[in-house]
């Protein structure tokens, strides 16, 4: 049977050709779609999931400033979990932890700093804003290819009957697996194991009051905890805990390459992680609700594709816009999507969407924090991958020193200091420590 027998468009408002097509309804795509539609451009956004967010597993932190930059005052309406007022960093071994905590009353004041969200709900809300702004939102539709004429992108081909759609410009916001970016000839390095991290996460249900008790939070406030140490099995990566309204997101993100090299499954790391005594206390009695896993592009600046071509722009994860050091990605996606849209709007005034005209996008990104941050950390991922001691030995040593120092026994304090110094030197020769510090300084500053 052919659905095409029925002629749609009783209201003649459906354009046969759009100003812009956005591929992907995540933060980058939705920021682009919303910005274009708000400015009166005809824009269609194509998302492969049942709804925007249905394919997303992120239950983590979104930042207020960049989000409000695209969606002003979003916190008044958007589905948020908790207002993050505390950020913790743990250096943890399999049985102990040094915890650094920062809490600020400022974080609780408008315009706030960050919120925990379920992206599956949050992205749905973003999509509703784009629809209300006048965009054509299409879900359950996979874009399989780009339509090209003489090397110029002129539209998309979806898997649907009569699935071609034409536009002046296509914004690719397809996420971590950049098939279209490759097809457009824009990719610079393949999405291989050294360039991606695998994050696995569980959502555990726990009553509101228990969460607020255990994490020492005001009602409605939330905590975000990042954990470094032996609990990732010594692999380069970090663990995380985020408090939601009545659930906790707990997970680990580890460089895929190291999982392959060590023949380790990510879920087994998470299982061990949950057994760590200080962590286990926080999640005790919580019942599992979800388990999910997702790739994160961490190739950084060096893996960034060509960001523009004739009739095409790339934004968000597809463009490798992730800062692995600060665990930022959604904010960079939102901002890059917005900049892609603003570029299209500027080009529309001149009527040209060729490579030269669209290079404005790259210029805007260079001026913004996006490229500055990505450049700053361009060596971060290889540095972390080649210095596993940061995730094993150093946290272990910190814990040993703390334990010894706080243990009262028959040693004098002076003897204790000597003992600890000897221990430290035997584990980390001075030359190695200096080299690690130097490497860290070179790679991360």
């Amino acid at each position, binding site marked *: *049977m052919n659905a095409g027998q029925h002629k749609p468009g009783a*209201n003649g408002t459906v354009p046969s050709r759009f100003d812009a097509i956005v591929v992907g309804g995540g933060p980058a795509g939705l920021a682009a779609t919303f910005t274009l539609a708000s400015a009166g451009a005809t824009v269609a956004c194509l998302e492969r999931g049942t709804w925007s967010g249905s394919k997303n597993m992120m239950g983590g932190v979104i930042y207020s400033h960049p989000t409000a930059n695209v969606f002003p005052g979003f916190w008044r309406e958007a589905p948020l979990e908790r207002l993050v007022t505390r950020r913790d960093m743990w250096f943890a071994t399999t049985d102990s932890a040094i915890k650094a905590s920062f809490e600020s009353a400022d974080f609780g004041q408008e315009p706030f700093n960050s919120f925990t969200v379920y992206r599956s709900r949050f992205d749905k809300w973003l999509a509703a804003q784009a629809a209300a702004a*006048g965009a054509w939102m299409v879900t359950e539709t996979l874009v399989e290819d780009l339509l090209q004429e003489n090397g110029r992108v002129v539209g998309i081909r979806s898997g*649907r*009957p*009569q699935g071609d759609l034409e536009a002046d410009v296509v914004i690719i916001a397809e996420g971590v697996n950049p098939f279209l970016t490759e097809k457009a000839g824009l990719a610079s390095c393949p999405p291989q194991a050294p360039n991606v991290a695998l994050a696995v996460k569980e959502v555990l249900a726990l009553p509101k009051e228990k969460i607020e008790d255990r994490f020492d939070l005001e009602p409605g406030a939330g905590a975000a905890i990042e954990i470094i140490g032996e609990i990732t099995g010594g692999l380069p990566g970090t663990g995380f805990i985020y408090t939601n309204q009545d659930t906790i997101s707990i997970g680990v993100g580890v460089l895929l390459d190291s999982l392959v090299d060590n023949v380790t499954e990510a879920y087994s790391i998470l299982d061990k992680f949950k057994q760590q005594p200080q962590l286990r206390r926080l999640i005790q009695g919580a019942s599992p609700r979800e388990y999910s896993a997702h790739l994160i592009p961490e190739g950084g600046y060096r893996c960034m594709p060509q960001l523009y071509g004739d009739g095409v722009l790339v934004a968000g994860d597809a463009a490798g816009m992730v800062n692995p050091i600060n665990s930022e990605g959604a904010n960079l996606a939102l901002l890059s999507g917005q900049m892609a849209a603003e570029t299209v709007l500027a080009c529309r005034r001149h009527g040209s969407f060729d490579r030269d005209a669209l290079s404005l996008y790259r210029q805007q990104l260079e001026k913004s924090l996006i490229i500055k941050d990505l450049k700053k950390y361009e060596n971060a991922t290889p540095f972390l991958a080649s210095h596993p001691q940061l995730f094993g030995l150093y946290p272990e040593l910190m814990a040993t020193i703390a334990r010894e120092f706080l243990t009262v026994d028959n040693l004098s304090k002076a003897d204790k200091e000597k003992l600890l110094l000897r221990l430290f030197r035997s584990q980390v020769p001075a030359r190695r420590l200096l080299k690690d510090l130097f490497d860290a300084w070179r790679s991360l500053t």
Partner: protein
Amino acid sequence: MSINSVVCIKQVPDTSQVWIDPETGSLVRKGIPSVANPYDLYALETALGIRDRFGGFITALSMGPPQAEEVLRKALGYGVDRAVLLSDRAFAGADTLATTYALAAAVKKIAAGRPSQTGGGSGVDIVFCGKQSIDGDTGQVGPGLARRLGFSQLTYVCSLIEIDVKAGCVEAWRRREDGRELLRAQLPVAVTVTEQCSHIRYASLPDLIAAAKKPVEVWSVPDLDVDRGRLGLKGSPTRVSRIFAPPARKRGETLSAPSKPVTEVVENLFDRLSERGLKIGRRGG
């Protein structure tokens, strides 16, 4: 020569994700994504197939909270011509009696706006429903609508095969416990369909794009010719006295004997079947 139809679509929680609260015995729906009732999509495809053959006009109808618009938007994506959502606090808490009352009033209003093409005398020739919803599971709304509208009814339809527009009648296969039966009914008719009907089609991109901004009409109580007292919780005499999990069905007998030859197992099977009075012809004696 065209058939006007109404397809009733209910937004239900995705039952693959809901869980039962062991204390109250009720479905926990909080935070569970909603989907279109799967049987209603078979109803929708049946309606679309009829429009492909005979032409006509399809209205998708739902009742629910404002977010039930999502399932109607989905129906528009498949190419239905009009979408109507009954949404009003007064409709909330309805059992099947109050639900069919509201839906029937909506169908009458839809019918009044469309000239009759067949001899049925109604502006709506066929009302399609799924055989039941996957959350309530009553299977009463389709037949209830037929009764309230004075339509003939065909339930558990597994294949709607023919419409004789001139004679104003419809022929369909109906599923029974022990097989199926061929039935003929006069238009207008209310049809409830099973999952043996055709699976919903893959919508075309132009239809989806056209649907993206097509309006979903929202009707509240004042839009319908109804008596408020017969709506929602007020109009629902059904009282739930107890909710319980039914005892698990006894599993069937399994004949397995990995060490024995297959023929022996088959012999055993034949013996068991003939014990139960089933006559089996044995080939080759």
